């Protein structure tokens, strides 16, 4: 039977494909479970998804609790909400911690579960830990006290200028969502063993208020900003939509690269929103970020400042981007970008010759 103290991960699958975030969550959950000297349970919800249970064990789950129902073939908020609640009610005692992804599904579902249970939920965490907390606040004497081994949910706040540790020790489960691409997945271990069991769900008429007409998966239209190793971004300094040809051309010299853009370039209609990096776009941390014609306004900066290497080209030597880029070239990006491409290719060739020798 399941251990009531297990750390819980709610797995995410879309039409039978396990999403990357689940592996990351299981990695994070194992770290927490080790500190709490307990195990990891994973909730798996969908239809005809039993083959995924074994994968979840290989990723780090000790126990997989499955709700498999034809009504769960497609994700909808209310049917999946019902399934999560069914498992939690089946567990009798609330688990100490429940983790979900800060994805379009996790951010849709987690707040409803938290509001239903009247528990705390911390969004978009970048670190998770276990520790103690002494609550001294006097506003509500019933809350005062010392709490051991509680969840530290750590997240950036105020446009990523601050990091905050959020605590909710008063009621279990302590819930958190984690940002895509931040938590470390464990190496897949195909020898790991675990248990799998099913829990039934009883739907209510109200659960079907939203119907899915269809789900369209358009992988080609997807811009993998959060997963790419290299991002080459264009800004307002490009001057026109055609300028992105230069950006794409430079990006093509890298093995695993995508094209990014500043908000002003997107707002100008030069490139679709899916490419936008920054506060109202994606937050990225690639190995290399190249900014072409981007001034580096705070709203862009908060989305990319944690990139490992930032290279900027801008004709304005006073542009804010040169305050936080690691390398900068002052000049015309239309000259610089093609030269960069040429020199990078040359460097790779020389490297290849050396390696081959």
């Amino acid at each position: 039977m399941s251990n009531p103290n297990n750390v819980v991960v709610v797995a995410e699958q879309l039409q039978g494909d396990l999403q990357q975030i689940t592996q990351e969550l299981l990695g994070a959950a194992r770290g927490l479970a080790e500190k709490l000297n307990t195990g990891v349970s994973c909730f798996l919800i969908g239809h005809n998804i039993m083959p995924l249970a074994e994968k979840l064990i290989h990723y780090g789950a000790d126990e997989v609790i499955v709700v498999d129902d034809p009504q769960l073939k497609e994700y909808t908020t209310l049917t999946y909400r019902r399934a999560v609640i069914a498992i939690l009610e089946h567990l009798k005692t609330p688990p100490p911690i429940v983790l979900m992804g800060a994805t379009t599904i996790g951010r849709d579902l987690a707040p409803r579960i938290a509001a239903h249970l009247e528990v705390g939920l911390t969004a978009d965490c970048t670190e998770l830990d276990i520790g103690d907390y002494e609550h001294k606040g006097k506003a509500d004497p019933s809350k005062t006290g010392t709490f051991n081994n509680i969840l530290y949910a750590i997240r950036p706040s105020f446009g990523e200028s601050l990091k905050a540790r959020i605590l909710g020790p008063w009621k279990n489960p302590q819930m958190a969502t984690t940002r895509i691409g931040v938590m470390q997945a464990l190496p897949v271990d195909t020898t790991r063993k675990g248990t799998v069991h099913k829990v039934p769900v009883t739907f209510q008429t109200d659960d079907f208020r939203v119907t899915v007409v269809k789900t369209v998966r358009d992988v080609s239209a997807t811009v993998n900003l959060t997963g790419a190793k290299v991002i080459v971004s264009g800004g307002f300094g490009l001057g026109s939509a055609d300028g992105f040809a230069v950006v794409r051309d430079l990006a093509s010299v890298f093995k695993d690269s995508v094209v990014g853009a500043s908000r002003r370039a997107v707002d100008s209609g030069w490139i679709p929103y899916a490419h936008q990096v920054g506060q109202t776009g994606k937050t990225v941390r690639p190995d290399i970020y190249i900014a072409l014609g981007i001034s580096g306004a705070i709203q862009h900066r908060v989305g990319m400042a944690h990139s490992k290497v930032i290279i900027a080209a801008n004709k304005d030597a006073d542009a804010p981007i040169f305050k936080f880029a690691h390398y900068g070239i002052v000049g015309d990006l239309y000259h610089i970008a093609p030269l960069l491409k040429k020199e990078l290719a040359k460097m790779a060739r020389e490297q290849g010759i050396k390696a081959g020798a």
Partner: protein
Amino acid sequence: MFKIIVFIKQVPDTSSKAGVNPDGTIDRARAKRMLNPFDRYALQKAIEIKRAYGAEVTCVTMGPPPAVEVLVEAFEHGADYGVLLTDKRIAASDTLATAYALHKVIHHLGEFDIILTGLQTTDGDTAQVGPQIAERLNIAQITYCEALSISGKKLSARRVVEGGHQELEVSMPVLITVANSATPLDYKRFADVAAVKEFLRQPQERERRIKTVSLDIIGADGTRTGLVGSPTVVGKTWKLGEIGGSCTLFQGESPEREVEELIGKLRADGKGVEELVNV
């Protein structure tokens, strides 16, 4: 005619240095204020529905008295009514406590067809309050909504998911959070700033359009809001170290020379760039 509620929020303008404390926290009293940028998409969607299908648009905000400014901004873009929930006891509410207070405003206002919110705020960045209001009201929700159309009481919507989208149908009432991949913004199109200035000058009309309410007026329980009513607490904050900082700048020579020097420096610094380039 549809009844639409739009939840909007006044947030600190982080592009301005004003009101940023040395420890990185924000002094909201001194900070420049603005309408949460994400809310413009929700507001635009409301005005689009109003013009296409006929609707009465009420904007609701919660915050200290100056938050009334975002209601005035909403009027300028075509909203009909505004409600400001202001009360000392709501200060420092987390998302759950905020959703509790806001759902009581909905109870106070009565019937509605659609609630619109922005995807998230730029100060909280959680995207949680919308779904938590929907849970409290026991209504359906569509988050990350990019496009929608209405036929009778049925609403069809396109919702973003990773690597694609879902096409959904729902009967009203429904809460929708509007993705910022929705229609590009031109919500100032329908602005009538002069008319708004005019009615704000007339106390009677101003009072008819803007309602200021407290927790007592909306029948909310003060122990379920603010610090007391929040299940989470901020335990500790750190300022993130100054990011980047020392930029090696190449300038004043020919682009060829600058690029060559940059590549040389990248290699000398051992940044591993070689590994990432196609051979």
